[in-house]
């Protein structure tokens, strides 16, 4: 499982151009930062208050004024810019090149559900709704299924985080793009066949004529 998640994070790390401004959600998305290619500098957005997240603070060397959006003590890059919440979400809606986050469900039209399960205890959307409504590119990184059930569906059954916002999905099985025609598989991992990925998906997939193997390393 850890290997599958690492595979997803490694693949996602190739999505960014040098100089990109990116928000990485909590969990698997956060790991993406560990695998950025040589020569690609990305400025990471921490929606609680800055552009220029580096990594976790070492125990005993925390700066109590610097937390990430999960409340953990973190460090920043030398070109960091701290800002207030209004500015931070101005950046999110207006300037983020990409937001990377997990999903409970993604629909074939790009609808995303990742914040609430009716009946379960409510945590709140935090900044997620703003982040997906605004970023130029929303990339979902996720295991392809949840307890065997598909997460990519014809239509979301859970309340949405935003409609038609997802542009790309990266799972352990492959890389998919959301297009007006539906979800197009552009890369398939060598461990899986077209039939495997289709069987694990709740909507009809389109296979790119240029279908490539999902790059591993």
């Amino acid at each position, binding site marked *: 499982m850890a290997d599958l998640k690492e595979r997803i994070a490694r693949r996602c790390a190739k999505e960014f151009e040098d100089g990109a401004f990116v928000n990485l959600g909590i969990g698997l998305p956060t790991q993406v930062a560990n695998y950025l290619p040589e020569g690609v500098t990305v400025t990471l957005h*921490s*929606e*609680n*208050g*800055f552009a220029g997240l580096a990594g976790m603070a070492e125990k005993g060397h*925390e*700066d*109590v*004024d*610097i*937390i990430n*959006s999960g*409340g*953990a*003590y973190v460090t*920043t890059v030398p070109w960091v810019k*701290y*800002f*207030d*919440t*209004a500015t*931070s*979400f*101005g950046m*999110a*809606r207006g300037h983020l090149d990409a937001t990377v986050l997990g999903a409970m469900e993604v629909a074939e039209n790009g*609808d995303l559900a990742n914040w*609430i399960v009716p009946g379960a*205890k*409510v*945590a*709140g*959307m*935090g*900044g*997620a*709704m*703003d982040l997906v*409504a*605004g970023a130029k590119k929303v990339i979902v990184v996720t295991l392809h299924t949840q307890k065997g059930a598909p997460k990519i569906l014809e239509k979301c059954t859970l*309340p*949405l*985080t*935003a*409609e038609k916002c997802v542009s790309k999905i990266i799972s352990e099985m492959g890389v998919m793009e959301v297009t007006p025609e539906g979800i197009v598989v552009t890369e398939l991992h060598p461990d899986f066949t077209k039939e495997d990925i289709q069987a694990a998906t709740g909507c009809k997939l389109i296979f790119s004529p240029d279908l490539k193997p999902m790059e591993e390393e």
Partner: protein
Amino acid sequence: MAINKIITAEEAVAGVKDGMTIMIGGFLGTGTPECIIDALVAKGVKDLTVIANDGGLPVGAYDAKTARGVGKLLEKGMIKHIIASHVGMNPLIGDGMIAGTLECTLVPQGTLAEKIRAANYGLGGVLTPTGVSTPMEVEKDELGRDKQVLELNGRKYLLEMPLHADYAFCRASVADTFGNFYCAKATKNFNYVMAGAADHTFIATEKLVQVGDVDPDIWDVPGVVVEGIVEGEPVWQI
């Protein structure tokens, strides 16, 4: 010369009455004016409506020996209604909602900031793409009003109305005696939009300087919106 506004934490909360609406700066406690919160707890008002990013932190979170920020008010049962973007880090909120003792209105974080800014800056509202086609579109707002959806240039937006409070309590890292202030690093969060979005704004500051002692371009928030300044806000200890 009404340019010295130093007061005590007790004076800052003296006007807060049961049932009032108060805004509290901070993000999971970071950037919350703890000395003012402590004075509010000591005063012991109830049925507050609190506008904040979150419910602060409960005892034990990140090894803390006490609750932090809004968490202290939750612990004492002083809140009737919380308007926030994220309440998952403090289980007292979920517990209160299940028990029926606490009402909670969720607002997306960026929308919450813009609603507060609109109140502060005399605007009638803002249009945001955030929340379109989600439960935010159909749920009532914090005052029980329906949301309006406007379609402009082929795109749908929610019309979000101003969010105003009786009191705003903010935390500064450095302030002058007139109330010009800034918050260091990631402690800015909601402190900048909340200062001025209430009938009365009070700040607690770690460090105080005399007016004119520093380059005025270090200030982020104008002292004209600040009614009183409490000195001696402690640095958080971990």
